[in-house]
């Protein structure tokens, strides 16, 4: 059994993603949580590149890590939230939450363990499905109707932000 560079990268990125995700939920300071979440998104983008989904990797960084998380950070800074402002939950409730989440993970994994392990992911010639050219064509031909529909979603979100945010 040989270890390829892909596998090494997979493990490194996985550990990074899981670690930073754990830090998101354990950091006391909300700003730190945001930064760790950005780190998680970067590791996930790394995974996308491993899976040769370059387009999504870039979008993930630009949209998520770049725009959305900055919005979060902005709001947190605006409210001046820091370590002191978030009272901690009761230790037992935290424990119960962690155990419940752990149980869910266990059950999910146990029920999916029978998935045919033959299915694998490897690089193959012509496997450029994640490239922008191919996705762009698909998006504006087959998926043009959902694409237009998502504009309605944005319109309603826009109207909503106005309704909620506008001073009366």
């Amino acid at each position, binding site marked *: 059994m040989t270890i390829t560079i892909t596998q090494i990268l997979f493990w490194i990125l996985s550990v990074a993603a899981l670690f930073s995700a754990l830090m998101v939920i354990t950091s006391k300071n909300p700003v730190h949580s945001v930064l760790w979440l950005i780190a998680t998104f970067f590791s996930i983008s790394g995974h996308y590149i491993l899976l040769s989904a370059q387009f999504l990797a870039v979008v993930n960084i630009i949209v998520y890590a770049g725009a959305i998380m900055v919005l979060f950070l902005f709001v947190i800074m605006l409210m001046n939230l820091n370590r002191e402002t978030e009272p901690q939950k009761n230790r037992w409730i935290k424990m119960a939450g962690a155990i419940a989440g752990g149980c869910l993970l266990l059950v*999910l994994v146990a*029920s*999916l*363990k*029978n*998935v*045919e392990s033959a299915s694998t992911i490897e690089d193959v010639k012509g496997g450029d499905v994640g490239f922008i050219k191919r996705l762009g064509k698909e998006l504006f031909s*087959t*998926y043009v*109707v*959902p694409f237009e*529909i*998502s504009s*309605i*979603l944005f*319109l*309603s*979100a826009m*109207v*909503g932000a*106005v*309704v*909620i945010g*506008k001073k*009366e």
Partner: protein
Amino acid sequence: MNALVISAVLGVVMMFSGILLKQKSAVRNVAIAGMVLLLIVNVLELCGNVFFNIDSKGMIEFDRFALLFNTIVYVSAILYLLLSARDMEKVGVNYAEYLALIFFILCGITLTSSFRSLLILFLGIEIISIPLYILTGSDKRNLKSNEASLKYFLLGAFSTGLMLMGIALIYGAQGSFDTTRVSSFQGTASPLLVAGMVLLLFSMAFKVSAAPFHFWTPDVYDGAPTVFTSFMATIVKAAVFIAFIRLFDEAFGTLQSQWQLLIAIITVATLFIGNITAVFQQSVKRMLAYSSIAQAGFMMLALYAMNADAKEGLLLYVTAYSLATIGIFAVLIKMKDYTFEGFNGFAKQQPLLAATTTICLLSLAGIPLTAGFLSKFYMLKAALGTGKHLWLVIFAVLMAAVSVYYYFRVIQAMYFKDGEVQKIDVSPAFKWTLVVVTALVVLLGVFPNLLLNWYYF
């Protein structure tokens, strides 16, 4: 397709009408006219006139079931606007925006009733949900409204996460989001598919407020401005139910043996919690929230049975339920005191409103000669048709009997108790609309085929 395009356009029109029209009544009239237009184009499509022939690559299909349901939704929405649009003015200043959001929601409803792809289902559900988060919080100064909005948003986003994980697992198993391709598999179903189906079941159960995913419902319905609670509890809930039954019919029909037991468990839990907890409410609004959970339990029977009777019966059920609940809420909105005591002596002050409310309540309780009875009958018969689990039917009948208790508390307060008479002023038009709603409830209770024949011819 007519209604989809028109409803989206109307949403935009409403946005601009808020800027262009100074009079609120003008905005309202535009909205009502738009809704009528929507109904007309939809009925035209039902009769075979499609104006917008857009190729959705098989992701959306407007079949009879979808079109008929859309018709029901638009009729209910017209009645809703006629009865309650005036009351939206009290909520806040963004009158035109509220109406625009309602049109966007209707656009989402049009999608969820006709999807053929999980992608469209997802988009439709989100287009329904996001405006609802906003409408729930639209009474910005009211802390209850704030709280309801944030709770709804956080829990709703959580359930969206569950739904997406479910869709992802299904995609892993079947390699497609197409409902027909999801349902076609060789041999036994992959665990991925089953797990995905269960996760989708959770999130849909959340959206229709079936136990044990119902917790948001009482709080949100209670906290939201009553005029929007009315919309959420009726039209939106009906739409999600239709999506639910479509999903489990078309995508998971082949997996029926896998989910039937789960649905049975959820049905029993929903019926029990909804009915029993409703008994102890002090506020009519909150009672109606629990009652909507209880009614959802009954509608779950259609999912459980999943035969031709069930789909037909569900159409009747959502119609009966929506009409009756809109009728009750329309009166409730006018009241200042939402407790049961607030209704004391109501019959003396407003005999007509009391009478219409009574008939609507009787329909919800399932008293014969109202649409509520027949729709419950259909549900139970459909569940019997599966030939299994007779106890489920008996349990449902028992719970229906419990429901009589809390519906009759309102009737009793209105007719048999004296109290501080609340002054409410309503226009004759409002009264006549209510009479129409009530007449429909009774008419469908005697001639259900007036509605159901549309499904077949």
